[in-house]
């Protein structure tokens, strides 16, 4: 058994690295995934700006990226990672593969949220002379905001899971601790603690996120 203070600082460092990887990756993944999801929705044959060919190309790219297992992607993008970050180990180095893996996933999550928006609302906006851009910002994204928030919770927890996996290839965070102490050194108690912490983080994100999502949905206001 390790000395308690060393133990705490180890876990504390792992925790902060995990949060860092997750949040930064989620941010960048949305930076690409959100516009991509919007583009997928509006260019679909039933969308507000149908562009069948572009839509099909985007679909194929997204599906291909999504069907590559994350561990393989992690290794495959190493050259790109080195170029962007300067190194292939540590928590920052896991961000590029996390973003590449999560962005297409997020695009699909965003797309499914936007598709939930009642076609009647879009028709009403069109009848008022709204431009496609105005429909995207004032109707699609705003009407779907609660569903988008739910999607963001799912995306964040998924990225958290991926970030733990990156521990196998030299990434940091709780995943790396679990791998180094639990897998390589048979310190099962350390591994269990990291797993427990990961579960707690997921629970917190889930709870807080879903509560926010419900609160921002005006449809849930009770009839007075």
């Amino acid at each position, binding site marked *: 058994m390790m000395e308690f203070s060393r133990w705490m600082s180890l876990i504390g460092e792992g925790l902060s690295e995990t949060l860092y990887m997750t949040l930064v990756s989620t941010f960048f993944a949305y930076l690409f995934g959100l516009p991509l999801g919007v583009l997928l929705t509006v260019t679909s044959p039933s969308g507000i700006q149908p562009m069948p060919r572009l839509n099909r190309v985007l679909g194929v790219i997204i599906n291909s990226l999504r069907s590559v297992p994350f561990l393989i992607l992690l290794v495959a993008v190493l050259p790109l990672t080195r170029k962007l970050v300067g190194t292939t180990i540590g928590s920052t180095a896991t961000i590029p593969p996390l973003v590449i893996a999560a962005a297409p996933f997020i695009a699909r999550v965003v797309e499914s949220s936007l598709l939930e928006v009642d076609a009647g609302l879009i028709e009403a906006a069109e*009848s008022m002379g709204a431009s496609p851009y105005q429909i995207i910002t004032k109707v699609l994204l705003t009407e779907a905001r609660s569903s988008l928030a739910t999607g963001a919770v799912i995306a964040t927890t998924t990225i958290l899971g991926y970030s733990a996996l990156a521990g196998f290839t030299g990434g940091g965070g709780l995943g790396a601790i679990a791998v180094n102490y639990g897998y390589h050194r048979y310190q099962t108690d350390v591994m269990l603690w990291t797993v427990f912490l990961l579960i707690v983080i997921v629970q917190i994100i889930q709870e807080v996120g879903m509560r926010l999502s419900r609160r921002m949905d005006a449809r849930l206001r*009770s009839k007075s």
Partner: protein
Amino acid sequence: MSSYVTPVHDGLREEPLFQLEGLTKVFGKGEEKVTALQDVNLTIRAGEIFGIIGLSGAGKSTLIRCLNLLERPSDGKVIFRGVDLQTLSKKELLKERQKIGMIFQSFNLLQQRTSLENIRFPLEISGMEKSKATARAREMLELVGLPEKEKAYPSELSGGQQQRVAIARALASDPDVLLCDEATSALDPATTKSILDLLKSINETLGVTIVIITHEMSVVQAICHRVAVIDTSIAEVGEVEKVFRRPTSRIARELIFPKGELLERLQGNNYLRVVFDGTAANEPIIANMTLACQTPVSILSADSRNIDGIAYGQMIIQIPEDEQDKEKIISYLISRGVTVEEVTEDTAQNGLSKEGVK
């Protein structure tokens, strides 16, 4: 196409607002081709309340969506205030749409915006300054009688209230015309009446032209000046009274006097269809007839409607086999100013003949 236009001499309703010329809309290709509209010619005049009635699938929604080019016609022209809408650029079309308000059966309010924010929506789109837009939106809420619901979300409003907010929203940008697609079909009769009353007063006080799509005769009757009966093409157009009194197309007769099961029971020639077209005075005609002719008749069906306080409608009566009695009854009825028609299976199916007695 102007053959449909019956002139109205109150000055207000002379100028055409919409002219549809040879409007045709075909959905799909090949085997799955559906012709929703076929060579529709129609003029809607500025200031009138124009009804478009038809059975489900007759092309009503397609037609009204063509008026603001939400639906692109396959062929033909949509001319709004003298401008062929299909010649406009995208940007110009968006600008024109601000002059064409629209409301829907399902209200289509933005669920994440309050009433006030919903009404402000078209003003934001046109780039109006926010404080001005808010003031205008408040004015509109006042107009539709919901000033206290400014902060309410659609989920907190009843159907009738939601439709009022939708009307306020559609009127906020000061349009020339309000298109209503089955705007009252989701509402109960009392709420329907209050919404129709509101539309009527909007037409009268603001001079906004109103186009109403419906499958309900009662809606047309309640507020429309003129009506077009549609069944992929326009079956007939005219003043509401005239169309109701003397529907000339089969589809109009079907809508005005639903056949029902009665016709299946009719056989032989000893039935008469008696049509009241408002010219006969308020007298109990059938009762007086039995007294005058001394022959009993039985009433098989009666379907009358009240238009501007005058009864229109039809009645089917069974008369004696005796030829002399029959003659007597028919001539009595004609003398009272009603239209009489012998009903055979064939004429029953085809409704009223224009000539009356054959």
